[in-house]
């Protein structure tokens, strides 16, 4: 009887029982004997000299154990900067101390920390810390930061420009000169806050006897965190243990090494007591990385038939005040992905990274690719409008055709596989595109404004080949077949909602013929799991899953040797069939992996020279990135009286290659679309001209609620990749990348009768209402 295959089926998540019953352990749930609580004192100024930090009153407060300023940390030898990972030779990298030493550069920068035996007392005492500041000139916007004579965020650098990356290919000037139409547009990708519902948090424990520090942190990268902490703290790496317990959402924001992590570990060592820090939401808005924040001045050149011949973009990326882990790298992805799924041979692109007196930007879901997709997809619609063409036709004309893969873009990437037209035609069919267009025309005649928006995206993920990454791009997996036949999987990735405890177990269950309940997938503890790189960049399955596949193959190969010896057969005649070892031509012979594992444990019936035990650790080094793609279609109605956008229909057809668990894949797409739609319609981090954060709480920052989002209709095509042995691409970020331009294109399509060509996000009602009122002048041409 053939075993029922689990891969490809919607197996319920094995993570869920502990989560739905409230029995999971997030960082804030960790309690250790003798634990004390840290509170950070943060700058209320966007740019100022620190004149004096007076901790005396705070230290005198009952229940306060200690307090330290940035200068105190320096004096105690804690002088390392927080890390930035990059391979940019000319990058300007200012020092970035965990606590500011003599100058603060954004609102929310930590200047001091205190420790009390109770979190309430810690916060009371934080109010008693007196910091005297001498205000310095502030610069918040990138264009002002680049102007001559602008205030310098880091005076020692002599400039606010951290780097510039130009990328020119083909003959862009010739292409623009010979084009029939050129469209110019300035596109702003507003700053966003990632807002995982669990904020950051840390518990640090010092084992004085062993000289080891353990850091529980809400992180996506426990091993990278361990490495960096060992460097910052000056401890051997073996004396640092990082644990990512249950992590309540990341979206890139926890792909970092934060000041508070380093300080908490240092405090635990200094005080000899476990130290907990739980971030408040207000702190999280100020001091967790932000995403996006790019201004792109774009030009696109086309022939009359819609063929795109050239693309120009000058992109200014607001980096914030300091480099966090990947701050400078993220905007470079925008340039690389700017051509999207289209054949565009002539490009003239440049991204400039600029320091300002704001929190750092870094990886937020999509990380550089949503900006690229927004750029090219808005431009495609603007070209279509200029030519009076259907936006779908303009896209059809320019898609890289399926036979062209692997396809090397003008920006130097090699797209692995794709069939872009296929997802678009499927999405258009699902959305009844001709029908909706007809309805749009009919409704316009009634003074109702329906809009249809398309986004055909390709994204780069499965991060990634080590040669193309700022640090290691591989990942790892260990499989141990235990004596009783249960299987332990140790994965180097660090899932926090993506469901690999389930999908990885599905894969192992099928390939090794083990019941899924007999498989434990372990992650997130550097003492238990071999080095791994982590979960980000839609890499979990494409890299970590691929490593697991390699480990499965190694286990199978050894199990076959064991069985062959037992049967007195040639290993070459054995194979895995439906999860069991079989002998070709002899259906009576069968051995389970568990039986082979037991023989491997007993050790007395093994072929000469074969080591006992049945386990394997493998690493997968991706030869390339993977490039998922898809088409999203959004149908909106904009109320001319109020400017309110109602999303009537949302169709997404995505292609992430092979699928291990369709339920989980769809869940990733749902959440991704929600975040992309949130950028289009609702969310925006706002700093005023003094660098004050105006969107510092969930009262001001508009994370959408259930009623503000529609139902999503999903479908998919399957175009496997040959980049990894599973044929999978990534799916974590696809929804976010595809959604934003689909929604914006839909709204602007609705506003076409008003002659409105572009409005910057978020498309809040007042902006739309004003645009409609201003342009219509009482008369609307239909």
């Amino acid at each position, binding site marked *: 009887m053939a075993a029922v295959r689990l891969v490809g089926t*919607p197996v*319920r*998540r094995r*993570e*869920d*029982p*502990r*989560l*739905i*019953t*409230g*029995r*999971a*352990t*997030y960082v*804030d*749930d960790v*309690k250790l004997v003798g634990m004390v609580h840290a509170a950070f004192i943060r700058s209320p100024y966007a740019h100022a000299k620190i004149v004096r930090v007076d901790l005396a009153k705070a230290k005198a407060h009952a229940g306060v154990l200690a307090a330290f300023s940035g200068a105190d940390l320096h004096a105690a030898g804690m002088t390392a900067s927080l890390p930035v990972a990059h391979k940019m030779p000319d990058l300007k990298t200012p020092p970035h101390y965990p606590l500011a030493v003599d100058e603060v550069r954004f609102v929310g920068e930590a200047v001091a920390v205190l420790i009390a035996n109770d979190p*309430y007392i810690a916060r009371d005492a934080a109010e008693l810390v007196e910091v005297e500041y001498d205000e310095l000139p502030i610069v918040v916007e990138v264009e002002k930061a680049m102007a001559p004579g602008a205030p310098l965020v880091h005076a020692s650098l002599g400039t606010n420009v951290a780097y510039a990356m130009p990328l020119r290919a083909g003959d862009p000037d010739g292409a623009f000169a010979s084009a029939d139409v050129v469209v110019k547009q300035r596109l702003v990708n507003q700053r966003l806050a990632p*807002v*995982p*519902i*669990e*904020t950051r948090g840390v518990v640090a424990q010092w084992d004085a006897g062993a000289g080891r520090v353990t850091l529980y942190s809400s992180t996506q990268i426990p091993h990278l965190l361990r490495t960096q902490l060992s460097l910052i703290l000056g401890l051997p790496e073996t004396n640092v243990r990082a644990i990512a317990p*249950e*992590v*309540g*959402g*990341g*979206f890139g924001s926890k792909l970092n090494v934060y000041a508070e992590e380093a300080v908490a570990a240092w405090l635990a060592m200094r005080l000899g007591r476990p130290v907990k820090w*739980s971030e*408040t*939401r*207000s702190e999280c808005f100020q001091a967790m990385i932000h995403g996006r924040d790019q201004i792109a001045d774009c030009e696109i050149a086309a022939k009359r038939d819609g063929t795109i011949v050239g693309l120009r973009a000058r992109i200014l990326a607001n980096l914030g005040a300091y480099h966090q882990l990947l701050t400078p790298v993220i905007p470079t992805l925008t340039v690389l992905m700017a051509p999207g799924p289209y054949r565009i041979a002539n490009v003239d692109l440049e991204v400039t990274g600029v320091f300002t007196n704001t929190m750092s930007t870094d990886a937020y879901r999509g990380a550089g690719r949503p900006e690229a997709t927004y750029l090219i997809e808005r431009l495609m619609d603007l070209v279509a409008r200029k030519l009076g063409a259907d936006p779908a036709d303009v896209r059809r004309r320019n898609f890289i055709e399926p036979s062209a893969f692997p396809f090397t873009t003008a920006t130097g990437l090699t797209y692995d596989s794709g069939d872009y037209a296929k997802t678009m035609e499927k999405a258009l069919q699902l959305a009844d595109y001709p029908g909706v267009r007809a309805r749009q025309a009919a409704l316009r005649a009634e003074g109702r404004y329906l809009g249809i928006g398309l986004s055909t995206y390709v994204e780069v993920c499965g991060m990634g080949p080590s040669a193309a990454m700022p640090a290691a791009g591989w990942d790892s997996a260990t499989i141990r077949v235990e004596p009783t036949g249960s299987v332990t999987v140790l994965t180097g990735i660090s899932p*926090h*909602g*993506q*469901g690999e405890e389930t999908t990885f177990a599905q894969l192992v269950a099928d390939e090794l013929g083990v019941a899924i309940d007999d498989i434990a997938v372990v992650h997130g503890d550097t003492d238990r799991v071999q080095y791994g790189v982590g979960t980000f960049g839609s890499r979990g399955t494409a890299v970590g899953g691929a490593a697991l596949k390699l480990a499965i193959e190694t286990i199978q190969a050894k199990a076959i040797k064991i069985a062959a010896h037992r049967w007195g057969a040639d290993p070459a005649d054995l194979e895995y069939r439906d999860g069991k070892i079989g002998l070709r031509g002899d259906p009576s012979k069968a051995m389970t992996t568990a039986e082979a594992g037991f023989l491997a444990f007993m050790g007395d019936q093994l072929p000469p020279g074969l080591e006992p035990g049945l386990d394997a650790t493998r690493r997968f080094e991706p030869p390339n990135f993977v490039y998922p793609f898809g088409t999203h279609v959004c149908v909106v109605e904009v109320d001319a009286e109020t400017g309110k956008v109602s999303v009537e229909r949302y169709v997404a057809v995505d292609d992430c290659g092979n699928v291990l668990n369709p*339920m*989980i894949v*769809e*869940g*990733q797409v*749902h*959440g*991704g*679309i*929600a*975040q992309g739609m949130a950028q289009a319609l609702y969310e925006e981090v706002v700093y005023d001209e003094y660098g004050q954060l105006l969107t510092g*709480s*969930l*009262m001001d920052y508009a*994370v959408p*609620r*259930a*009623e503000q*989002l529609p*139902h*999503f209709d999903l479908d998919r095509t399957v175009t496997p990749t040959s980049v990894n042995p599973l044929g999978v691409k990534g799916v974590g970020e696809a*929804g976010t990348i595809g959604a934003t331009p689909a929604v914006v294109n839909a709204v602007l399509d609705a506003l076409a009768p008003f002659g409105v060509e572009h409005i910057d996000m978020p498309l809040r009602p007042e902006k739309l209402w004003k645009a409609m009122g201003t342009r219509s002048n009482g008369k609307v041409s239909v």
Partner: protein
Amino acid sequence: MGRIELEVNGTRHELEGVEPRLLLVHFLRERLALTGTHIGCDTSSCGACTVLLDGKAVKSCTMFALQADGRAVTTIEGIGSSAELHPMQEAFWAQHGLQCGYCTTGMILSAIDLLRRNPDPDEVEIRTGLEGNLCRCTGYENIVKAVRAAAAAMAAAQPVREAGEPPKSPGELLEVGGSR
């Protein structure tokens, strides 16, 4: 310092030395070690800390512990266990209504309260009914599905009520969960 008597998940507690400013959520998490109630914001916006107070959903970050004196609190730990899931927990699992799980416990309690008030909500009623709870992972798509599925399961498990009879009490709902 105050003294409170309250019932939490069916167990009576009498506690001395409760600081008047202690929030209910911290009381539950720190004094009673019921860490399934989460904290996601400081403005009563996210709903991660939702518990049932005398059967009605409240945000436990918006109440002092002393205000729960004489009341009955139900947290996520009190509605079901892995062995005996409440139909709402079962539905969230079956419909993949969670990813990171952080908002989930509060979301489940809000959804239970929603069905107490409206045992058969449509999609719009579910979406508006859960407006006090933020989720960043799911886009709410499968949460809506889960609440629909739970409503159907709970209706099927419930004897038909006479017209005019008051809506289901949380106690009845708990029995539904417990009897599975």
